[in-house]
Structure formats: C-alpha cells, structure tokens
C-alpha cells in the first residue's frame, strides 16, 4: 500500500466542499460511495470505464451522456496510468448526486510527475464533461476530478 512518507507530507491539500478536492488525509483516501481500485495497468482501464458507464446508466443518464462519461473516464485513466509509480494502484471514486456524477481518479506518482493539459486527449476529456480539473495538491498522488450532468445541455 502507498503510505506517504512523513517528510513528504508538508504540502497539505486544499480542502473545499468539492467532492474532487483532497481532504487532510490526502488524495489517496478520498471517501466515496463507490470506489474501484485496480493495478495501474492499461489492461484494466476497460473495467473501470465499464463501471462508470454502468453507474451512469443506473442513474438514468441519457445514452449520449453515458457514452460521454465512459469516454471521459477512459481518458482520465489513460492519462494517469502511464504516470503511476511502479506497482501503484489506479483508484477511481464515484459520487452520484443531484443529477450528476463526480469521478475522482488518481494514481501514486513521483514528485516530478505532471499531467499535460495541452493534449488532444485532455481536450476530448474537457469537451465530454461539464467540469474537469487536475488534482495536484498532494505530492504523492496525482488525480483528475471530472463531473458529468445526467442530461446533456
């Protein structure tokens, strides 16, 4: 398991009411009603995006929105997995509320890891979601929070 080393915990995360924001425990442990944890292996991303689509379908998302969320979660995972520390876990938490789903995907990273936002993939991700942001306040973990409304505008 990924236990943050004490000397690396001096950078505290910003805590807000946003479900995507990391609390004082850091990004690794972000409590959500549904969480999927898999090895940070590209071969397991199809399973994670399938869970996202299933949750959206059960939350009565329209079919385009289900498709969009599946793609957005795939994109988030595809961006994060290559940055994960060896042997690390990809964790995706899902919060269903008020006609929307929030997804918080993250991986344990080395300090210098950054997520590029000038890629085609990131553009696709922001196009498909109502909100998308990089969660980089935790030095040990890097994540993406995305939000999708049940109905496309």
């Amino acid at each position, binding site marked *: 398991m990924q236990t943050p080393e004490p000397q690396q915990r001096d950078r505290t995360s910003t805590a807000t009411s946003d479900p995507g924001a990391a609390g004082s425990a850091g990004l690794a442990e972000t409590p959500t009603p549904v969480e999927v944890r898999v090895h940070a292996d*590209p*071969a397991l*991303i*199809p399973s994670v*995006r399938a869970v996202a689509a299933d949750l959206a379908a059960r939350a009565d998302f329209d*079919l*385009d929105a289900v*498709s*969009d969320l*599946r*793609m957005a979660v*795939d*994109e988030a995972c*595809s961006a994060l997995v290559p940055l994960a520390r060896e042997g690390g876990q990809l964790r995706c938490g899902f919060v269903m509320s008020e006609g929307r789903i929030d997804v918080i995907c993250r991986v344990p990273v080395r300090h210098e890891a950054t997520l590029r936002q000038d890629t*085609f*993939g990131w553009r*696709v*991700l922001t*196009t*498909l979601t109502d909100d998308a942001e990089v969660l980089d306040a935790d030095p040990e973990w890097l994540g993406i929070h995305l939000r999708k409304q049940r109905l496309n505008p």
Partner: protein
Amino acid sequence: MATDDDLTAEDPLGVDVQRSNGASVIRLAGEIDMLTTPALRAKVNEELQGKPTVLVLDMLSVEFLGSSGLALLVEALDESRNRDVALRLVANSRPVSRPLQATGLTDLFALYPSVEAALAG
C-alpha cells in the same frame, strides 16, 4: 493478404483486412482504446502505404472509441489525403457516432451506413 492471424483470441479489438479491386476494407470489432490503437495504427498505415483507391474502415462492430482511436482516425485522414486515398468510415451506432459528434469530428469524415455504400461512394 493481411489477416488477423497475428491477433490472439483474447484481443479486445479484432482487425480483418480484405482487399479487392483496388479497395481495402478493414473490419474492426471490439474496443479502440489506448491498448488497441497501436496495432490498429500499424494496420491502417500498412493499407495506406499500399495506396488503394478507397480505404474503408468498417466500424459497425466497434463497441468503444476512445480519444486515442479518434486521434488515429484524424491521422489516417491526413495521411489518406497525402496519398490520394479516399478514406471512408462505416458507422451507424452510438459507440462510434457519439464520440465523433461530441468532439466535433463528424463533418471531417465521409460516413456511410454500410460497407457496400462506402465502396460505391
């Protein structure tokens, strides 16, 4: 003639190439994502290098199209224009049409409802 004999049964994307009368048809079945795009890119480039008159990508059995797949389609379109190959997509279902539509790419491509229609132009 290229076939799918280098793909294992567990492969999440089946790729089958048929060539006849100067046209190439690549039939795809399964998921086009970060995992499967590299092998597909190699197949598409191989067909484009053969300079067929028409290259048809039959995507009727595609169940997922991620951004890596969309990027590949855009690359293939650019390359097909460089080589004077008519690139035509066969797609009529949500797993392909929605990603194209949501990313504003639909109008870039020549879309057909069937392989026959795509070959006929």
